């Protein structure tokens, strides 16, 4: 059968429900194919369930890098030295999480400040033009930020047996 015959056959089966006699296959099909049951209505998810992965990832950054403790602290009263020392802990822990679960690479390899060309019809999710945006391209411009992309995402499955709203449990040491 040619491609177009197959296509016609597929469409006729899809919309007509019966095979044309001329194209009856060698093996008989069941007389009537039960229509699949309609999919169950999508469960209504709460905001926490919908964004469970985000809360879970925040939990990883908190567990390894104390990120929430740092961000939720009022740091205005601390000296730059104290903030700097604390940020080293946060930096090391959060970086460990990123390295473990993601591969992050710049969108473009050129260094910042370099002149790069952006082709006409560029991928607008990969490039953002600023400044004198006019004409149809290609353009030449100075790279202000090389961008980031995740070339690998291997996060663990979001837990279903613990409450995802609890980003970090309270810890109580018993004497």
């Amino acid at each position, binding site marked *: 059968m040619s491609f177009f015959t197959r296509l016609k056959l597929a469409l006729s089966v899809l919309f007509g429900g019966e095979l044309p006699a001329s194209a009856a296959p060698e093996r008989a099909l069941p007389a009537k194919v039960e229509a699949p049951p309609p999919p169950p209505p999508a469960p209504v998810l709460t905001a926490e369930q919908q964004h469970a992965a985000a809360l879970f990832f925040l939990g990883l950054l908190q*567990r390894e890098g104390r990120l929430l403790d740092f961000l939720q602290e009022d740091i205005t009263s601390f000296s730059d030295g104290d903030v700097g020392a604390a940020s080293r802990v946060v930096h090391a822990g959060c970086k460990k999480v990123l390295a473990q679960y993601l591969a992050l690479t710049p969108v473009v390899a050129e260094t910042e400040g370099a002149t790069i060309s952006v082709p006409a019809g560029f991928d607008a999710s990969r490039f953002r033009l600023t400044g004198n945006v006019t004409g149809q391209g290609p353009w030449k411009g100075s790279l202000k930020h090389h961008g980031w992309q995740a070339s690998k995402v291997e996060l663990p499955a979001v*837990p279903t047996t*613990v*409450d995802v709203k609890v980003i970090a449990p309270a810890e109580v*040491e018993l004497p």
Partner: protein
Amino acid sequence: MSATYSIGIDLGTTHSALSWMALDAKEGRGPNQAVLPISQVTAPGTTEERQLLPSFLYLSADGEFPKDALALPWKGDARTVVGEFARTHGTKVPTRQVASAKSWLSHPGVDRRAKILPWQAPPDVTKVSPVEAGARVLEHLAH
């Protein structure tokens, strides 16, 4: 049925690992040999694959974690856990953590089948013997 692969088990004092190679491979190193990632609980509710399985056993208290939070795909609601979470959480609750069980196996002054671990466990902990602790790690590796 003849075997196709050979699997190596390293039951270590602090970490254990699995490695495999195809038996028809001529060279036992390089591309023919690889480490098998090991699924384990890394946090309550989270199971991840890691290259190493910490050889630690944690004997949790009743209600210490949410129901099924220590469950593994092959093992439902579990009170005891082997691996990464047993190691990290056990450092905060040393009286319920069995560590370095292997070193007790050959200790001259210890009956390796006596239920003595964790060494400093409170009375409500069901202690295990060094042999049982090692067996629990091997049992985990077998899955």
